């Protein structure tokens, strides 16, 4: 998500430069007013913490690992103004010391990650904390923060280079959703570990989150039906091109082409098949979590 120099066009840089400058100046004033001067070391050390935390890899799948990006965790722990300034400091140092992101492109990177990213993480966290769901708020905040920051970064690159295709957009969106979900889980895990270490969790009862995750998954799936492309996937495309596609299958499929053939309405055929698959996956995962001993799950 760190855009280097040489990619963005002058109008994009100028507009986001103006927005970022105003945002950072205002955030610095608010952070200075709300953060006592003695907390400057806190912001600096937490900025260094984000760098160090990126060394701790989380296993996120077979042979794959991810690391914390940090915006949501900072917003939840020190508030949005101070988090914006800390993230801006991190981005400046990454650009100057590690050449991660451009110097002129800081205009866009600061807006995407330090301003928009932090506020997108903070708002769901704050709203859901009020109804006693801080964990769900933190997860949603981290997901939205990464997802929408990345989408904005891609839009900036797309508007500047004019090389992006619709297919590439869909591929990148899928990638960003996965990255956002990983950030959400890591942020949540780190938050819970901090609560455990600080003893804040004592006396609190944890509400199960699996129903909320199931509801969110169904909602995403139902919305996705309307945006899904009708074009064949890459494998099918190449099978057709190479002339090796075959309609003969060794076993009759329960729901061929991810559709429930018994229904008449097209969107209902697709969405009901998706919902059934989702429920089956959820039920299997739930049963595994119940029967596999906890020690083996970790």
């Amino acid at each position, binding site marked *: 998500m760190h855009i*280097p*120099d*040489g*990619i*963005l*066009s*002058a109008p994009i*840089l100028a507009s986001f430069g103006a927005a970022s400058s105003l945002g*950072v*100046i205002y955030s*610095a004033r608010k*952070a*200075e007013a709300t953060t006592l001067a*003695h*907390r*400057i*070391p*806190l*912001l*600096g*050390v*937490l*900025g*260094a*913490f984000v*760098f*160090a*935390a990126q*060394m*701790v890899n*989380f*296993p996120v799948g077979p042979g794959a690992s991810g690391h*914390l990006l940090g915006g949501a*965790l900072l917003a939840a*722990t020190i508030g949005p103004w101070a988090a914006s*300034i*800390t993230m801006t*400091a*991190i981005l*400046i*140092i990454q650009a*100057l*010391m590690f*050449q991660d992101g*451009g*110097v*002129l492109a800081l205009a866009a990177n600061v807006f995407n990650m330090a301003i928009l990213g932090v506020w997108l993480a903070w708002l769901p966290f704050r709203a859901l904390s009020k109804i006693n769901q801080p964990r769900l708020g933190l997860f949603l905040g981290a997901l939205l923060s990464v997802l929408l920051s990345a989408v904005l970064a891609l839009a900036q*690159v797309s508007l500047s*280079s*004019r*090389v992006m295709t619709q297919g590439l957009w869909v591929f990148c969106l899928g990638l960003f959703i996965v990255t956002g979900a990983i950030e959400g889980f*890591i942020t949540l*895990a*780190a938050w*819970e*570990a*901090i609560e*455990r*270490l600080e003893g804040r969790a004592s006396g609190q009862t944890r509400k199960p989150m699996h129903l909320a995750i199931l509801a969110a998954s169904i909602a995403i799936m139902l919305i996705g039906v309307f945006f899904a492309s009708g074009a064949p996937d890459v494998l099918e495309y190449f099978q057709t091109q190479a002339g090796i596609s075959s309609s003969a299958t060794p076993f009759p499929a329960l729901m061929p082409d991810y559709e429930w053939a018994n229904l008449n309405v097209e969107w209902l055929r697709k969405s009901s098949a998706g919902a059934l698959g989702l429920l089956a996956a959820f039920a299997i995962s739930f049963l595994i979590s119940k029967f596999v001993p906890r020690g083996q799950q*970790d």
Partner: protein
Amino acid sequence: MKLDPRCALLLLLSYLIALASIQPGANRLLLTLCALPVVLLFLSPVPRAELLAQAAYVLPFSFAIAAVALLRGNTAQAVFFLLRSYISILAVLITTKLATTLELLRAMERLGAPRFLIVVCEFVIRYIEVLRKEADSMRLAALCRGAAQSKLIAASSLGMLFVRSLERSTGIHNAMLARGFNGSLPRAYPMQWRLADTVALAIGIAGIATLRWAA
């Protein structure tokens, strides 16, 4: 004679703005502007081979965009993005070799960046290595306990690192208060803008503008 960091920063920004203003595909104009950092690279006391290799760090990101342009049959545009991002980072690398990060941060402060932000940046730089070493030793200890497959150990490591960072910041705050800290860091060596900096800035901007718009 070393330039004032403000002058170096302004020249770098002018050059990057000139590069950003070139339309994709205008490769001849881009090549003309590339001459500036290349000449500077051979005139400055910097490790040339190291910087040329280090600038390639940016290529994977640019290559993704160049690859899409190539797939759409636009070779000139692909070359343009690769070259422009490479030469941009080379200019940044030369500047950061000639002026330290702390000098550049103070130059930003003198040019109007919020002081609060710059002080936070200075603290981050001061404690990156400290916390990185701490995270590294924690990671090693966790790996010895089989953390490669455990989300729980990874999360606990992060939580512990966060709590230790908070404790460390309290200790730093107390130590700084004992030394009379009042919210701002004193500057031991104030910057001095000399006539030579004005001349260098004027010649530099005129040269960049000439190459960009008159060439």
